[in-house]
């Protein structure tokens, strides 16, 4: 029995070696970076202007990557918004005045405030706290980032960076946190994180990547709804009334035994597919079903009900498709509800979806 178990362990180890693990790509709210394999997003915020993201190491490792970002061009208001807050941009647009210059943020003061809070935690746990700040420097291909590196030891250990980007006006604080004994691992993860971290995109498409899903969405679309379940991911993005809906189901080989692609999509599509033109095509060498056409009156009324305040870019057309990726054993569906002016959006989004 012992020999059998030993053999089994050797076989499992060999199997594990056969499958090369790729780095984890994380993309959220315009921020993207790479981490070692099997890291997973564990906490996130839905806000693009002022938010946070946390990514945890696999297994029992205590390493985590924490990110916070805020828009320097939209400073946080204290108290409720005033009439000035609403009217100033309108008057500025009407009078064709330029946007006010973004004030340069005191990064050192910001990071010192955060370190002070960390020191408080260390003091409560009765452990000594030490921190060090490097000098401010310019980074990036066009020196667009003003950055300060920092590190601390207290309850655990952390290595991070704060910077302000002059292109997207974001202030980003990123740090890798772990136990005191994890110094080497923290340094390795931090160097990979800072080498691959980007806070804005060059081609106008934000990368949204988590749990092995990678898709490019136009940067002016905002995340409206998400469902991140085991075996099912759902993301809805909106720009005015226009929507992009991305779904991914796991265990495609099990699902497809009972349903054809068209049946599965018909059961899960945002609108009724009965009157839409359908055709079979190939996406990334996978068989796909594609639907396109005008939205029915019923669907438009439903969208009108959901449109809360604005009818800007009200969608009148639908384009959607589903394909099965046998390599990753997953079903991918991308649906676009768009206005007459935005043709070709489905193709642009689908071209930026990495399924395997």
């Amino acid at each position, binding site marked *: 029995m012992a020999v059998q*178990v030993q053999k089994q362990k050797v076989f499992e180890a060999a199997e594990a070696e056969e499958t090369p693990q790729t780095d984890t790509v994380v993309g959220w709210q315009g921020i993207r970076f790479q981490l070692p394999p099997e890291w997973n997003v564990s906490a996130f915020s839905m806000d693009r202007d002022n938010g946070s993201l946390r990514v945890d190491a*696999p297994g029992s490792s205590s390493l985590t990557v924490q990110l916070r970002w805020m828009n320097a061009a939209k400073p946080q208001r204290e108290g409720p918004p005033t009439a000035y807050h609403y009217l100033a941009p309108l008057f500025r647009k009407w009078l064709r005045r330029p946007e006010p210059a973004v004030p340069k943020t005191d990064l050192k003061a910001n990071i010192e405030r955060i370190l002070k809070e960390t020191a408080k935690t260390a003091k409560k746990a009765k452990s000594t706290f030490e921190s060090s700040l490097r000098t401010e420097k310019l980074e990036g291909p066009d020196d667009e980032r003003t950055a300060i590196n920092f590190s601390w030891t207290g309850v655990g250990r952390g290595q991070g960076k704060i910077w302000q980007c002059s292109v997207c006006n974001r202030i980003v604080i990123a740090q890798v946190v772990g136990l005191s004994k994890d110094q080497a691992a923290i340094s390795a993860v931090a160097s990979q994180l800072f080498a691959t971290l980007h806070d804005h995109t060059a081609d106008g498409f934000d990368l949204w990547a988590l749990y092995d899903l990678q898709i490019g969405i136009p940067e002016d679309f905002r995340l409206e709804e998400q469902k991140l379940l085991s075996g099912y991911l759902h993301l809805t993005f909106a720009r005015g009334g226009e929507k992009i809906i991305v779904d991914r189901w796991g265990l495609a080989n099990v699902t497809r035994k009972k349903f054809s692609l068209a049946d599965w999509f018909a059961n899960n599509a945002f609108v009724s597919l009965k009157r839409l033109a359908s055709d079979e095509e190939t996406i990334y060498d996978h068989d796909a079903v594609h639907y396109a056409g005008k939205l029915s009156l019923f669907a438009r009324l439903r969208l009108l009900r959901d449109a809360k305040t604005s009818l800007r870019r009200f969608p009148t057309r639908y384009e959607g498709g589903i394909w099965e990726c046998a390599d990753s054993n997953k079903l991918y569906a991308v649906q676009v509800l768009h206005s007459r002016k935005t043709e070709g959006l489905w193709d642009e989004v689908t071209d930026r979806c990495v399924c395997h």
Partner: protein
Amino acid sequence: MRMPLKMRLYYAIGRYLPFLKISPPNVDRQATLTLRPGRNALLTWEKSETGGTMLTVPQNEKAGRITKAMAKWLRAPTEKRVELDEVGGYVWELCDGSHTVETIVQKTGREYKMNRREAEVSVTMFLQMLHERNFIGFYKKTKKS
């Protein structure tokens, strides 16, 4: 895993009367992954044509003579049948007492190309459900074994 009713009541008392200092033990994730699920020997199972697995659960096994007589008189069913889907059947086959939860998670993840996190959540939830119905039990590896 879900606790027996007696223990749940015991810890509920501890929650409302904190000075008694009764609190449930902390469940360590790492320790849970080293447990070895084993099937209930009373259950029989067979593969169905659709790819699923059919479990046959005997009823009234532990019932007394009177209950058994009543069940016979009322023609109560003597067994219950539960159908597991393909993935459930795959996990069920691995619950033989020799595989740890960790191994089952890894194997299921590899077989169905699932992300490690997805596989762990799905498998542990499924095992928890089987345990609640007394279909499986967990062996804990001790120093002697």
